[in-house]
């Protein structure tokens, strides 16, 4: 199975995740002349993996421009532009670069409206892409959604499906608050049905049930939804286990009701986060579920995430670092006291089928 098949329902009406991002930006730039996009290399021949394709040609260098690296200052520039009536979209080809923006994000953006006593607003969008594979290593692979969501005053979303990539980005651009959109590089080639309607938007803060189930609940972020979906297919087929999968889609704010409902139904929860576990989003979800659904839990809450090390480079180390469908299957077996699942004949996602060489 390849992830590209995951969201395919009717190929005629489907587009890729990267096209969905591109469509959202282009539609919003057409709709609102105050929207502009900037960042390192947004206008080069690669166009941020194709996500900023055509924008320079359609909207010109005033509304789509490349910048010096200067991540710290460029974040502040976005704040100042947003503060005075524009709607900037600031793009980073790797999430790790957001650490160079963190003074502005944590000290300025997070508190600007609050310190003004509600007199100003900062409608700024920051897009950043999580890298993985082909040795992206320790500085090209972070997600940092928990760290960002820790700060009040900022919204954080992580679209998984192409429709969410468009719908959440549209909502982010129209939001009067700062929103950080974290996109996984591997999702760029997934395809799915994406409404072309300009008014299509996915509300920030609402999780999405990707798969109905009754035996166990999985809450997943970003790429881990893909792994969870495959694990669920295999477990259904091989063990007759029915897993429910909820894509959190948003990290902050997040309406937890759907998660509580699901856990009350299944009694079992695994949070598969695309991040380290310590002080992370998975910890937040299990804490809340434990607070609200304690008596309905049939097994202790469980978490799956990165190994507690910096991201390694070699393929064999990466394989040990990142959790995947198999790690999820093993945990489900443990929780539900199932015999070992026969995985013969199953094909798992391998990025080399998609990417070779630097990307």
């Amino acid at each position: 199975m390849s992830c590209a098949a995951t969201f395919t329902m009717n190929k005629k009406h489907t587009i890729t995740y990267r096209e969905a991002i591109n469509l959202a930006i282009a539609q919003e730039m057409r709709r609102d002349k105050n929207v502009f996009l900037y960042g390192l290399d947004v206008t080069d021949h690669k166009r941020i993996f194709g996500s900023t394709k055509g924008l320079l040609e359609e909207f010109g260098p005033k509304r789509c421009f490349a910048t010096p690296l200067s991540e710290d200052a460029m974040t502040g520039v976005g704040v100042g532009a947003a503060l005075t009536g524009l709607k900037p979209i600031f793009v980073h080809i790797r999430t790790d670069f957001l650490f160079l923006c963190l003074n502005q994000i944590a000290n300025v953006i997070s508190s600007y409206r609050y310190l003004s006593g509600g007199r100003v607003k900062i409608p700024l969008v920051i897009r950043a892409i999580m890298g993985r594979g082909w040795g992206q290593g320790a500085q090209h692979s972070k997600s940092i959604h928990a760290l960002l969501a820790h700060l009040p005053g900022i919204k954080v979303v992580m679209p998984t499906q192409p429709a969410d990539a468009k719908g959440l980005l549209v909502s982010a651009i129209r939001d009067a608050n700062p929103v950080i959109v974290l996109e996984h590089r591997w999702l760029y080639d997934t395809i799915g049905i994406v409404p072309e309607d300009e008014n299509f938007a996915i509300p920030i803060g609402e999780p999405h049930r990707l798969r109905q189930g009754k035996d166990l609940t999985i809450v997943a972020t970003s790429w881990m939804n893909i792994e969870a979906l495959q694990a669920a297919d295999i477990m259904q087929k091989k063990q007759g286990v029915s897993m429910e999968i909820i894509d959190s889609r948003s990290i902050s704010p997040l309406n937890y009701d759907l998660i509580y409902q699901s856990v009350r139904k299944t009694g079992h929860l695994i949070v598969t986060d695309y991040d380290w576990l310590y002080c992370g989003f998975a910890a937040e979800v299990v804490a809340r579920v434990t607070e609200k659904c304690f008596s309905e839990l049939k097994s202790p809450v469980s978490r799956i995430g990165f190994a507690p090390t910096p991201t390694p480079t070699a393929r064999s180390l990466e394989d040990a670092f990142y959790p995947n469908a198999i790690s999820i299957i093993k945990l489900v077996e443990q929780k539900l006291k199932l015999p070992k699942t026969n995985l013969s004949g199953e094909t798992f996602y391998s990025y080399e089928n998609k990417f070779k060489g630097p990307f």
Partner: protein
Amino acid sequence: MKDANLELYKKMYLIRATEEKIRQCYPDNEIKTPVHLAMGEEAIAAGVCYALGPTDQVFATYRNHGVYLAMTNETDRFFAELYGKQTGLSKGKAGSMHIMSPDENLLGTSAIVASMIPVAVGAALTNQYKNNKRSVAVFFGDGAVDEGVFWESLNFACLRQLPIIFVYENNQYAINSHVSTRHGYRSLAGIVSRFDCPVFQSDTTDAEAIYHLTKNALRLQARSAKPVFIHLQYYRYLEHVGVNYDFEFGHRDKKEYQKWWKIDPVGLQRKKLLRFGLKDKELIKIEAGILNRIEASVRSAKQAPPANPNELRSDVYYE
């Protein structure tokens, strides 16, 4: 120029008297916010702000009282904010270090050194984008140019030819560290002039001279469509934070202060007005009016209800 000089004096007197009032009240421990007083800096705040056009925008630092008062001429909500009251500028959420007044184009001040510089450049980007002829002035000190973000912001403003006035206020000390222990170059003005950015430089404490210099900078900017850098000097009379002098600690010499006190901007301006023929009596009357206004503001701030705990969670997000 007599009217302009009187206006400049009123602004400077308001700033000085307001901060003297803070000094007087601070030991009562009712103003529970760190105050970074700008005594000595008044000519820059008054001179630059008075030169700006009515729609020009300003960003400043945590040493912001002077700029706030020069931009707004307002003391009621200012003192209420310092006293942590519901009637304060930001309903008690800002305190002294984050004072702003968007309605009067003071768009931001910050307690993180240099952090408003790129934000000001962003506002200038909006003005260029909208071609609305507005300019932006951003105030910062000799500590801010130690930060990378200053150079990043200067570079970007020059690259994009943004309509911004960089107002560099060298008071020689970042907290207590002298500029000679921090700057590994001979001339900031020299370096900045190698960017695509004209530099105006003066070490005057004469508000009128700073006003004219800023007017010239704004004219040049309108003509050349480039950022302009204004390189100014003043001496911070008091400690970095708080209301006292700090000469007894030995990191700076009182003789420095005595030298600068001879050219104190408020005193200079008063003497100038007398030379222009204003009567001492007239000035005393103007000063008394300002003092009364400050007293009334402090009184009403003290009487105002404290910041409302029900407001704690509001204003985090725009809803």
